[in-house]
């Protein structure tokens, strides 16, 4: 997929003349050593990344790892010391003030950790701010701001002032302000960190809900790995200004690049991260018309306890080895041994949701939207995957 935002070898040194610090970095000195020699802080250290159009790209790292610095370079609030940041091919780091303003007005909006709502403006005026800056007429501005407020469920609070709202509501306003100008890219710097845990997970779900329809390109900053795993299509883990691993949730948790990442992921509930698809086996089926002997022979051959049954190419049920055997002894047809009630789910469901299904002891059918069987999860695989954590810890 075409990348919407691309960063190439970005460095940021805070200080007057970064050349010495850059040289020291090239010579392999650490952040602390450089600070001792030059008194300058290394904010971001040789970062390269790609954000695909329409994805949520999460940057995760501890305090001081350079997340804010990185995200602020994307809309030019901070200029990199070297490297380029391309938005649709335009380098934000080197374009003119005028071009940068156009990008900020039309393409990239930002949502802030401490909301940064204007206390002297009403909620609807806050939301309309970006449009006002762009010169949109008052009536249209108000209308679009109102509909953005409705998107975040605050349609009735337009005339309040920000300090009359709770933290969660204020951040919804912040989100609406970001959405009102219909940007292609949304930068969110720890937008939910100042909220308490319950509201926070509400907001995460709401963001995912919005994203399903809006399909923005989102760069989301967090210091919370669970949040990163919940939201991110792609997750980049930062440490000391550098990105140490980029990948999707399963890659980060299943295959940490180094001990640093592994230490983070150790306490993660894997059942929430892994999708059913990740442990699926190819579908194993027989046709409803098959005679019992060959069905039994098929299962003996593959060593399976049960096999899905197709009727005219459509998934119709499941038959277990035991039931097939009993039917054979009693001289019944295959059809009488087929269970029409069987566990089935989407390959996107989390292992967490598979627990209950696995309890039946039957293979779980993974079906696509059309009901087509695309894979099978064996109950023992579910528990095995979750047990890996115990082994690696």
């Amino acid at each position, binding site marked *: 997929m075409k990348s919407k935002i691309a960063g190439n070898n970005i460095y940021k040194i805070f200080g007057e003349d970064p050349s010495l610090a850059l040289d020291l970095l090239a010579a392999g000195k650490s952040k602390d050593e450089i600070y001792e020699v030059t008194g300058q802080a290394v904010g971001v250290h040789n970062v390269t990344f790609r954000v695909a159009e329409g994805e949520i790209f999460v940057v995760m790292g501890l305090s001081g790892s350079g997340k804010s610095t990185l995200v602020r370079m994307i*809309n030019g*609030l901070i200029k990199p010391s070297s490297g380029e940041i391309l938005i649709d091919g335009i380098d934000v780091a080197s374009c003119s003030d005028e071009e940068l*303003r*156009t*990008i*900020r*007005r*039309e393409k*990239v*909006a*930002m949502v*802030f950790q*401490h909301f*940064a709502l*204007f*206390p*002297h*403006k009403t909620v609807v005026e806050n939301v309309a*701010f*970006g449009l*006002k*800056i*762009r010169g949109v007429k008052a009536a249209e501005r108000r209308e679009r701001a109102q509909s953005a407020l409705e998107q975040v469920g605050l349609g009735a609070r337009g005339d*309040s*002032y920000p300090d*009359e709202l709770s933290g969660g509501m204020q951040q919804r306003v912040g989100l609406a302000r970001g959405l009102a*100008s219909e940007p292609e890219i949304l*930068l969110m710097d720890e937008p939910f960190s100042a909220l308490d845990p319950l509201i926070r997970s509400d907001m995460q779900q709401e963001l995912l809900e919005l994203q399903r329809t809006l399909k923005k390109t989102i760069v989301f900053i967090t210091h919370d790995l669970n949040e990163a795993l919940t939201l991110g299509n792609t997750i980049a883990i930062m440490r000391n200004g550098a990105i140490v691993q980029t990948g999707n949730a399963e890659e980060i948790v299943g295959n940490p690049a180094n001990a640093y990442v592994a230490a983070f992921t150790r306490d993660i509930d894997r059942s929430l991260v892994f999708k059913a698809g990740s442990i699926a086996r190819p579908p194993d089926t027989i046709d409803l018309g098959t005679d019992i002997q060959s069905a039994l022979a098929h299962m003996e051959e593959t060593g399976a306890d049960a096999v899905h049954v197709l009727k005219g190419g459509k998934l119709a049920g499941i038959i277990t080895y035991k039931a097939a055997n009993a039917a054979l002894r009693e001289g019944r047809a295959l059809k009488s041994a087929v269970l029409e009630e069987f566990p089935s789910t989407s390959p996107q469901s989390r292992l967490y949701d598979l627990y209950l299904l696995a309890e039946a002891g039957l293979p779980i059918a993974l079906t696509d939207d059309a009901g087509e069987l695309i894979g099978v999860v064996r109950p023992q695989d579910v528990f095995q995957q979750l047990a890996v954590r115990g082994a690696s810890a």
Partner: protein
Amino acid sequence: MSPSDFLTLPFDDWVNSLVRDWLVPNFRPFFRSMQWPVTQVLNGLSAFLNATPMLVFTLALALVAWRTAGKGLALFTIVALSFIDVIGLWPETMTTLAMVVTAVLFCVVLGIPLGVLAARTEVFRAILRPILDIMQTIPSFVYLVPIVMLFGVGVVPGIIATIIFALPPIIRLTDLGIRTVREDLIEAAMAFGATPWQMLVEVQFPLALRTIMAGLNQTLMLALSMVVIAAMIGAGGLGLTVFTGLGRLDVGNATAGGVGIVLLAIILDRISQALGERRMVQVPSLLETMRSLFSLRGQKPAAEAKRAG
């Protein structure tokens, strides 16, 4: 033994020749022309205030006091202005008020842009600061000498001296107010692509308004404190009453003038303070403030509840 035993410098002569032989002949027309706008504003205001009947003016000011500072000050305004009227100082008070308002108006027009500029450019601020320091440390009397030399005597030179004397606080507090606007709000405005001018109008100025109003209050008070001194170079009004009263050892007249100044000062101080202390953050612009000031049914219930809480 002292250095003067060996050397005496004709410093006074130097200054004399600088001012008399160079500044005055070369720049007098320039300084004269500077008086023109001040004269226009003063004449307009004077004419207006003198034409307004005492009762109408008193009620109008009381209304303003009521809208901004509450019933107490409104009552005080009525009593104080009536007292001034009965002791026969009404015309002088109006003259003084016209002078003070003119001076403050020019302070605002000059001071706010200078303050904004100082907040935005470090270099300008570095130059301006020592000048303001000097302006504030020079005793007010000392202003009069060069003013008289360059502008002559009269009401307008008196107002110009007042402007110079009262200007620093509004510059300083405009500068301070704008520089202390929350950093994250500046960043937010920038992130949405605001131009420097939009930043000023939409974010910095409204958020600094409270501080700027505090500066306005100080400027107003300084302007009032110059009233008597300005009278020494020919300005009229209550200052003149005090000044001539002192000159003739007419304690009664001097005291009456003094009381008039004090009453006027109290009213103006309270009104301008209250203007600054209202929840400026909720009022988008000075214009709006002024508007709500004159609208009887003004405030929204929300704002009312806010103030109570």
